[in-house]
């Protein structure tokens, strides 16, 4: 059982990106700001603690993730699949994270991912309200954030 820390989020996200989508990343404590609108995926969970996990990425990185998940070349048609790709990666991340946070035998209930486009300011506000967060940069310098928000004990899936 591990404590929720930025390092744990970075490690879990990095491992999932590498294993599922062949995207290699490094944690970055002073990341460049998002310049334009971003894709945000959110998923709720409940168990020993309840909360919400947010995964936010540059849309071009989300397209790369879609291409790599599918084993296809990047190109036309992948734009529409980028939100689904980001949601599914979040689904994979939360599955790995709750076991690390609560242990192998803990009973947890996971929600289903919801994906939308938001502006950089809204994302920054979300980060400010998170219990902990991590930012990774992939090889081309594109940014992806993971933020964990915890709710009081006894809550259901948000």
């Amino acid at each position, binding site marked *: 059982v591990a404590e929720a820390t930025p390092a744990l989020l970075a490690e879990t996200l990095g491992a999932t990106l590498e294993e*599922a989508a062949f995207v290699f990343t490094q944690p970055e404590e002073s990341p460049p700001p998002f310049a334009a609108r971003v894709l945000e995926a959110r998923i709720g969970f409940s168990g020993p603690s309840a909360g919400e996990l947010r995964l936010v990425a540059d849309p071009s990185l989300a397209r790369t993730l879609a291409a790599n998940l599918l*084993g296809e070349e990047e190109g036309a048609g992948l734009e529409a699949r980028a939100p689904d*790709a980001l949601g*599914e990666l979040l*689904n994979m991340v939360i599955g790995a994270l709750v076991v690390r946070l609560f242990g192998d035998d803990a*009973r947890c209930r996971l929600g*289903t991912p919801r994906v939308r486009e938001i502006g950089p300011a809204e994302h920054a506000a979300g980060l400010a309200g998170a219990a902990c967060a991590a930012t990774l940069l992939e090889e081309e310098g594109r940014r992806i954030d993971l933020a964990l928000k915890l709710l009081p004990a006894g809550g259901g899936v948000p």
Partner: protein
Amino acid sequence: VSYAVLIADDSAIVRSMVRKAIGMAGLPVSEFHEAANGREALEVMSRHWVDVVFADLNMPEMSGAELLERMSQDAALVSTPVVVVSSEHSQAKIDELKRKGICAYLKKPFRPESFREAVEAVLAAGRGGGRG
């Protein structure tokens, strides 16, 4: 012998990934069917013969666990092998599903070779009928 396969997952991208992985695992497939949740999966199985189901757990409208429950109560579906493909990594959950009779459990992210093992489990269990 070839198999009619049903893939139930709310993510279209995962359905595509599972379809590719099954192909790479070498399972001869006569038909692929897809469903976005458990309710749609039951509808597909009411209209088509299905030899094996690859199902996610967390789906809207009807989850994979509810789908398994409904299949266990249906004489026509109770012996259809189910492989769960899920992002849930809890060993307690996996053990519970295995007690309920699932054929194999694949954790996401998965590798194509893990599908080969699942397919072998289906064939070894002798429950995947297939069509000659």
